[in-house]
């Protein structure tokens, strides 16, 4: 094999190794450094340029909402279980199943209402422009509109 070819191929392999190694090292290091503790609002603060005072107010709202949310979640899970029990062994929707489904729907509606109320309150504790942007994106998310909102929240244009 030609000596020059071996040298060039070896240099290329070395280049790929160097670039790949430093890329992975940089990526890992950055992920470790930027990782957010559970329950923290670092992402919200960064994405919506919040001050420390705004973040503290929103953190309080967030904690209250999470407490309510866990209760509602438990209710939804219980209603799901009741629907499953009512459906057990039946081949048609009997009145009991319909009743349990209605109760489950009520729980979900309550949950969505609670969530939208939380989003509204959070947006009111942000600077007006950021609040509008936050509320629009969160409403899209809550109503299950197409994704893509996540990207626009993460990388606001012209901010």
């Amino acid at each position, binding site marked *: 094999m030609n000596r*020059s070819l071996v040298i060039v191929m070896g240099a290329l392999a070395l280049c790929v190794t160097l670039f790949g190694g430093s890329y992975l090292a940089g990526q890992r290091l*950055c992920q470790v450094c930027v990782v957010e503790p559970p329950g923290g609002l670092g992402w919200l603060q960064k994405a919506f340029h919040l001050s420390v005072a705004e973040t503290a107010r929103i953190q309080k709202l967030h904690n209250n909402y999470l407490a309510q949310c866990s209760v509602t979640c438990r209710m939804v899970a219980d209603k799901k279980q009741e629907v499953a029990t009512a459906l057990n062994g039946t081949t048609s929707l009997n009145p009991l199943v319909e009743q349990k489904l209605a109760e489950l729907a009520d729980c979900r509606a309550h949950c969505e209402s609670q969530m939208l109320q939380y989003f509204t309150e959070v947006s009111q504790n942000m600077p007006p422009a950021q609040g509008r942007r936050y509320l629009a994106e969160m409403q899209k998310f809550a109503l299950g509109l197409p994704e893509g909102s996540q990207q626009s929240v993460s990388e606001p244009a012209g901010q």
Partner: protein
Amino acid sequence: MHHPGDGQKPPPPIESVKENMNPDDTKLSALLRQGRVSPTLPPRFQENVWRRIEDAEAPVLSAPGLSWLDALAALVLRPRFALLTAAALVVAGALLGARAGNLAANQAAHAQYLTAVAPPVMR
């Protein structure tokens, strides 16, 4: 050949020459030293000799199209070029990796927030 009667002076007898060959004769030694010719070497003589040796030992290129590859190999083997390239690759890789890591961490934090405010059981 010297013949008697050709007008030239005959050489001295051998005994007389032997008498004159005195190794301690400083005058004669100086004359002999002056008479020795020492040719001057052309400029870069030694360098040219080594280059010719290296050219003779180098493999003959069978294909003329390989010259660019040889030039590239020679460039790669230059220490300064190799060092600068390696440094540039490490810096570029680290910066791009950090950017990708930051983006991934940001997306993970975003997903974490959404999961907190809207647990899957509610959807």
